[in-house]
């Protein structure tokens, strides 16, 4: 698909907060989902006749179902703390990409229809009618938010724009204005079992191919098992790990870890996806239905543990929501966390000395780590505060000799989104994606200049896909991005101990 030309921002040696440019990205919106895509999810097939009252009713429904939305609509004082925190604002300068302004797109409707002040004095509190123009603006700017939650860290009331974006998308989906990219993918998961739409036989083929490749590389029979009943571990990983570069390198890494540690494991053709785009469109039922496949597969295969591969928002859903959505997990081995992140599993093996490494194998790489937003602010690892930051870094420094963190205000809790999260990883939003990557690219530039960093590790399929596409726009090599288990794969000692 052709992408309309745009200018890639230049990288500055220190971050600058731009002056606002009204309407800078008002032309950027993703394709609307066509009727068959909407229908498959049980959503209105196209914008319904009486969309306005329906949207307002849906909003009332959500205000009653989500305390977050109700509280966040009321709590904002327009202090501006969040105004310079969003990567899309920093990259585009469009003021509607300031978290507060994005929330206000919904807040002005909330005030008009749900508060006394807005009903009586709309002009005073910035309340407006829900017109077609407002709806279009919603569609535009609620698809320029990656639900990364960076704003929520700086808000004195913890207002999380992601919750507002999700609510807006759910309202729009229900009246027939769903987003093509996310809803098409959700349809594929329901139909086939994964985001990429890889059917079981093709998956089997791919895994056999990987076994052959790995045999060639290592001389060992490292298995990539599929649908093996009675395996100890069920691995739920993003389907990108099966097909995309550099994702597949991490999948090979997981397989080597299981092999070296002697843990029997399996993938599932029924639940061949860790990603859960139900989160992105804010739809609880969709999110739950997608997750249910994991429970079904775990019970069907009779596994004892569930481990999740490198995927950011998937880990948020797994860590924070699975217990609610498909718990309790009383049928699994309680000695291990449920679910467990592959990094937790590998780190645990490293700490116990159960696997070892030739760190020199990674010596050509000078590594930094990109904290994926959903892992950083929506989940954790290990039984410790900040484990989601400590564990991946501990793995990297156990398998490689050269590691440098990026600037403190761009990592850990304050990490910047890659620019492609939250259902924005689609070519029709390429300009938003490139510009939204600016803050991360500036931080990366600094460590490449100062320390010669040539590899950025991440634990998210979306980050990997996004950076592969976006790095070249900023003059970096697309192969700079890779997985943590890609590094593990390179250095792990295999064979007979």
């Amino acid at each position: 698909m052709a992408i309309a030309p745009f200018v890639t921002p230049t990288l500055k040696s220190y971050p600058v907060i731009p002056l606002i440019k009204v309407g800078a990205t008002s032309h950027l919106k993703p394709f609307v989902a066509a009727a068959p895509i909407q229908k498959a999810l049980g959503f209105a097939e196209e914008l319904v006749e009486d969309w306005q009252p329906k949207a307002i009713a849906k909003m009332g429904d959500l205000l009653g179902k989500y305390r977050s939305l109700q509280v966040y609509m009321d709590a904002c004082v327009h202090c501006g703390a969040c105004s310079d925190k969003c990567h899309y604002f920093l990259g585009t300068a469009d003021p509607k990409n300031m978290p507060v302004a994005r929330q206000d797109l919904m807040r002005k409707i909330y005030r008009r229809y749900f508060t006394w002040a807005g009903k009586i004095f709309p002009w005073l509190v910035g309340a407006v009618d829900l017109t077609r123009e407002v709806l279009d603006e919603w569609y535009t700017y609620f698809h320029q938010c990656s639900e990364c939650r960076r704003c929520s860290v700086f808000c004195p009331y913890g207002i999380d724009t992601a919750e507002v974006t999700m609510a807006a998308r759910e309202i729009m989906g229900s009246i027939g204005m769903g987003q093509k990219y996310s809803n098409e993918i959700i349809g594929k998961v329901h139909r086939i079992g994964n985001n990429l739409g890889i059917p079981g036989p093709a998956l089997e083929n791919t895994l056999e191919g990987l076994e052959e490749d790995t045999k060639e590389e290592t001389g060992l029979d490292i298995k990539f098992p599929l649908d093996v009943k009675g395996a100890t571990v069920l691995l739920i990983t993003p389907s990108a790990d099966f097909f995309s570069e550099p994702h597949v390198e991490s999948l090979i890494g997981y397989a080597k870890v299981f092999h070296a540690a002697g843990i029997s494991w399996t993938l599932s053709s029924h639940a061949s996806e860790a990603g859960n785009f139900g989160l992105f469109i804010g739809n609880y039922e969709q999110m739950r239905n997608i997750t249910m496949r994991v429970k079904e597969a775990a019970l069907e295969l009779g596994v004892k543990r569930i481990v999740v591969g490198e995927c950011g928002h998937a880990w948020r859903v797994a860590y924070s929501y699975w217990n609610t959505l498909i718990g309790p997990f009383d049928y699994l081995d309680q000695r291990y966390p449920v679910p467990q992140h592959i990094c937790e599993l590998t780190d645990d093996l490293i700490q116990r000395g159960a696997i070892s490494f030739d760190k020199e194998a990674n010596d050509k790489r000078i590594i930094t780590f990109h904290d994926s937003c959903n892992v950083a602010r929506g989940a954790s690892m290990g039984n410790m505060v900040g484990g989601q930051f400590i564990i991946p870094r501990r793995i990297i420094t156990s398998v490689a000799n050269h590691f440098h963190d990026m600037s403190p205000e761009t990592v850990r809790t304050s990490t910047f989104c890659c620019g492609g999260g939250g259902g924005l990883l689609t070519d029709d939003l390429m300009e938003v994606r490139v510009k939204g990557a600016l803050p991360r690219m500036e931080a990366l530039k600094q460590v490449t200049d100062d320390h010669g960093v040539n590899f950025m590790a991440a634990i998210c399929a979306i980050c990997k896909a996004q950076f592969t596409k976006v790095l070249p726009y900023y003059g970096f090599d697309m192969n700079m991005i890779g997985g943590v288990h890609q590094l593990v794969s390179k250095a792990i000692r295999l064979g007979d101990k």
Partner: protein
Amino acid sequence: MTMLTIFYALLFYVATLVFVVGLALKIRNYSKTPAPLKIPTGPTPKTTAGVAWRLAREVVFFESLFKASKWTWIFGWAFHAGLLVVVLSHLRYFQEPVWLPVVLIQPFSIYVAGFAMVAGLAGLWARRWLVDRVRYISTPSDHLHLALLLAIALSGLTMRFVLPTDIVAVKVFMLGLLRFDWQPLPADPILLVHLALVALLMMIFPISKLLHAPALFFSPSLNQADNARETRHISAWASALDKHS
């Protein structure tokens, strides 16, 4: 009994009623609305005690705002801290005898807190004009909130330092309101403005952004502990889905 006294007496009864009932309804609404999923934001404490400590830091020190913007923090904190001391010191108009702590903070309230309030409000208002991002998001209501608070603070300081009012009579009036035994209110214009604006502030509290005060405690991103794997979080409407599947 003058019309003026009757008007102000009724005004304060109505304002108190609106403030208390309005706020109670809002708080009931917040507490009854379910939070179906665990959505604490980082850096998230793992325990309830940790959450209490986190909320305390937000309420007392405005920790997140400090991380976000030092200027907004210093103005915002100065205003709120000043307001707190001033409100506490005003308790003396409603008590006889006056509590010792309220007596002890009087000099601090007179010479520091009132001016801190004004300086903080002025700084916050300046940001609404000077910072292009904050200017963009400011609504008439945002400016009017600052104007209202500033007018309350300045009228109060005027009575303290420029044109003193009969505070003994004011206290008799306030105690009369509490005891439902109305006493005359001095017809001092600045006092009347001060009191009317305070009543207005109380009445808009439950229908305006001033709700940020109770809302903070109900914000799921701040008030939840990071224990989703250990403790199964369930809420009514969401768990009902489990029954028919």
